């Protein structure tokens, strides 16, 4: 579904992503973990076309999408839930959800999708006329994922969705991601909580200094020594 082939990205002269290769198939969750500054967020922004791809290629369903503007990337079927959620606080919950339609290719099946999303995150239906800024952090995170799913993406990218959330809310979010995966969506999940994600994702790559240093299966999630070694690489 999504394939990164020796992708590179840089800010000016500074190389931030250095030859990252990974694949995410439909119905699969792939984790991307690593220390601050490892290049995780930049990798996601490069996939979205927000940061120019300086080398290598990003493919979606076998077709190169590197170089497309961000809006076109979204309409091809890739949605990003950014770090910090970026909810529009002055708009209502319903308006935030409607914004998700901007990236949707067709209105076909929209009613069914809305029903499914309301079932997945009842909070977005419950507070639909409330300003999104009045929601709690956990509710905003649910709204951010719901808004991304309105676009009916085939690939969902999430940047630190557990940041600042209580453990019970993290469970809710991870549970929702499992349901989204069950619909055949490919999920690439960037996180700081290494062991949590390594145990949850189908496989997890450790990114350090712009390169993938190690890949872990859920069974290897408890191998703390290996993970620390990769972080320090």
């Amino acid at each position, binding site marked *: 579904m999504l394939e990164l082939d020796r992708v590179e990205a840089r800010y000016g002269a500074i190389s931030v992503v250095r030859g990252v290769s990974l694949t995410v198939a439909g119905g699969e969750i792939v984790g991307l973990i690593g220390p601050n500054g490892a290049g995780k967020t930049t990798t996601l922004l490069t996939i979205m076309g927000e940061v120019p791809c300086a080398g290598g290629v990003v493919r979606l369903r076998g077709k190169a999408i590197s170089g497309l503007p961000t*809006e076109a990337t979204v309409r091809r079927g890739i949605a990003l839930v950014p770090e910090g959620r970026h909810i*529009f606080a002055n*708009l209502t919950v319903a308006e935030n959800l409607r914004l998700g339609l901007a990236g949707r290719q067709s209105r076909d099946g929209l009613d069914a999708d809305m029903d499914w999303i309301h079932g997945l995150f009842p909070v977005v239906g419950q507070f639909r006329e409330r300003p999104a800024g009045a929601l709690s952090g956990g509710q905003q995170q649910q709204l951010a994922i719901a808004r991304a799913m309105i676009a009916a993406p085939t690939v969902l990218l999430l940047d630190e969705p557990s940041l600042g959330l209580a453990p019970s809310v993290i469970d809710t979010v991870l549970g929702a991601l499992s349901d989204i995966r069950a619909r055949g969506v490919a999920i690439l999940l960037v996180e700081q909580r290494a062991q949590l994600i390594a145990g949850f994702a189908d496989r997890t790559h450790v990114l350090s200094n712009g390169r993938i240093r190690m890949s872990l299966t859920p069974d290897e999630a408890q191998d703390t020594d290996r993970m620390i070694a990769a972080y320090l690489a």
Partner: protein
Amino acid sequence: MQTIQAIIDAIAVGALYALVAVGLALVFGVMRLINFAQGELITAGAYSLYLTRNLPLVVSIVVCFVVCVALAVAIERVAFRPLRGASPATTLVATFAVAFALEAVWLIAFTPQGKTADLLSALNRTATHGSLHLRWVTITELVAGVVLLGGTVLVLNRTTIGLHMRAAASDFRAARLLGVRADRVIRAAFAMSGFLAAVVSLLLTVQQPLVTPTFGLDVTILALVGAVLGGIDRLATATAGGFLIGFISSILGDELPASLSNFAPSFTFLVVILVLLIRPAGLLAPLGQSGVDRV
């Protein structure tokens, strides 16, 4: 009764300035750019009225709208789109460059001498109600102000492009990451500002039919001051600020003795400086809000 008349006149002038301020705030909202070329749109509309003065009135008015909207969209496409992502200082200089370039075009094409565009001079006739004497243009300004400001609010709150514009004004990058098309949103903001400029052209030529190359400049600068005074990062406060500055200018123009009326703009700007020193985010911005990055 004279006071009531002065107040009604001032409200009408305020409505005119509010329309200019809305045009500026719409573009500022989505681009964080103060478009100094907005005044040239008004001038272009006025010159189009002069050029089409021998055509039927409806045709003249339609041409005025087409010219203003097309020029606004063209300026965005040719001058500002290639600079998207450039520093605020660069884009600010670009707006000056566009404004001066267009002013030079007006000078070459129409000479510094004024051209008369008095197509709607019938609106200078007076409607009398008791001892109240109102010019029809005053009534038209009031109606146009209410209808267009209401229409702008409706577009922003009830349409998809309006929702996208509000989202882009709040966080453009986040909006683009959702698939909101930057080009379309910015083009819509410029087109709306062009539409409003056309209305201002029509109304201004009633009051001052002599069109010169700086025809739209004064009203735009004062409306900009009003928008900044109110808080240009919010449509409502920018509009209210534009209205306020028009209202105050009109009252000062009416009430100050002749010997002082020449200094009315100086008094206005002094008040603006003092207000912004105390409330950098604008007089009408919510309490506690810090100043926005203005370019």
